[in-house]
């Protein structure tokens, strides 16, 4: 053993091994702290953006249309963002493992705590007007960073969801007006609409179906009370309730 002790002493005295300075560890701690803060903020922001995107794109609306809405619902979920969020959550967990309180508890506890905080914060923050403001900026080309993300995930889905105002009701069809066109919606027996909901003229509705020329093959309709739909690439914000269409730029 004395041999090992001697070798250690020799190595230190020959200055082959140098003690890292206090300032090195201070800088490392600062870097760690800043990285943790950045990752946490980004995680919270991404979580809130996902909640916002689910609402803003109309994805959540599919759930109101029963089984028929399930497939498009899952297809419209921003899986890539969710994957990124999972990676960030694991990164937060990894940072947390440096803290004794976290490393000495079963992983499932700390992970559950992180998920609850991230999801809770995300859901609450998504309700603030910040994301809508950023989406508007993205549409106006005033958001260099994140423009693509806001336009891709925050814009309303146009392919299978149509937000429109009822302008005429009769026994066979509804005549509706969307942002640009008028459509006829056939009222078949299979059409799914929520029970105890009476449709009326000037009501804003959301239609789940496909557009064929001037008619919509609807699988379901329901009153629409979501946020104002923002359409990708058209820079159009419409306020159907007030029957005004404001075109910012095309």
């Amino acid at each position, binding site marked *: *053993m004395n*041999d*090992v*002790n001697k*070798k*250690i*002493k020799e*190595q*230190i005295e020959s200055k082959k*091994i*140098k*003690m*890292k*300075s*206090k300032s*090195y*560890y201070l800088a490392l701690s600062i870097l760690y702290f800043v990285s943790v803060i950045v990752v946490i903020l980004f995680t919270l922001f991404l979580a809130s953006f996902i909640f916002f995107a689910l609402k803003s794109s109309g994805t959540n609306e599919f759930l109101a249309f029963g089984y028929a809405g399930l497939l498009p619902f899952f297809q419209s979920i921003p899986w890539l963002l969710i994957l990124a969020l999972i990676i960030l959550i694991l990164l937060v967990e990894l940072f947390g*493992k440096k803290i*004794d309180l976290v*490393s*000495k*508890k*079963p*992983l*499932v*506890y700390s992970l559950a705590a992180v998920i609850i905080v991230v999801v809770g914060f995300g859901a609450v923050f998504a309700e603030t007007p910040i994301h809508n403001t950023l989406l508007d900026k993205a549409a106006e080309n005033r958001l260099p960073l994140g423009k693509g993300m806001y336009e891709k995930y925050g814009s309303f889905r146009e392919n299978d969801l149509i937000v429109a105002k009822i302008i005429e009701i009769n026994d066979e069809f509804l005549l509706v007006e969307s942002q640009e066109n008028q459509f006829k919606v056939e009222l078949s027996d299979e059409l799914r609409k929520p029970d105890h909901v009476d449709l009326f003229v000037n009501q804003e509705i959301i239609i789940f179906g496909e557009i064929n020329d001037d008619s919509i093959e609807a699988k379901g309709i329901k009153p629409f009370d979501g946020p104002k739909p923002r359409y990708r690439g058209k820079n159009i914000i419409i306020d159907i309730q007030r029957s005004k269409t404001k075109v910012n730029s095309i």
Partner: protein
Amino acid sequence: MIDNPKISDEELARKVQNGDKPSFDSLVSRYSEKIFRYAKRFLYNPQDAEDATQDVFLKTYENIQSFNPKKRFSPWIYRVAHNTFINIIRKKKREKIQFIDLDTVLPHFVSHDYLEKEISDKFDVKKLEKDVKKLSPKYREIVILFFYEEKSYQEISDILKIPISTVGVRLKRAKERLKKETNE
């Protein structure tokens, strides 16, 4: 330099941090036997163990400014040793080390006192040193720390950075594996 036993490890470490090199010699003389013993049993190769022990102290010296003298020095240097030994095992690819251990994922609802009593009372692992070598690193290490280095659950939890309940469960499983080995 003659080691003054009245000076605590933490005080010595603080002195080293302030540039007192002879205090590091005292730390080496206090811990070299223990770390070498730990290395020998964990790496089960005397040459590896000697090199590893040397490495542990060089890393300790290099990184001593990251030690908080308000905390205990012993778990800290054992943690340095643990990391060094795991790196050696990984480098030599002799045994598989899992990145995530499922034992640390879920909570284990077993009384620590019960496990500690159950494990230490009825089993003399020291007589089974040959079989300890056959255990996988995660079980071998915990057996070495508990039975040979006589560390408590809390200390092992501090060294390995795992929940205390996991320490108990791993020890129980290690004991079962040793029993199985001896019966075969």
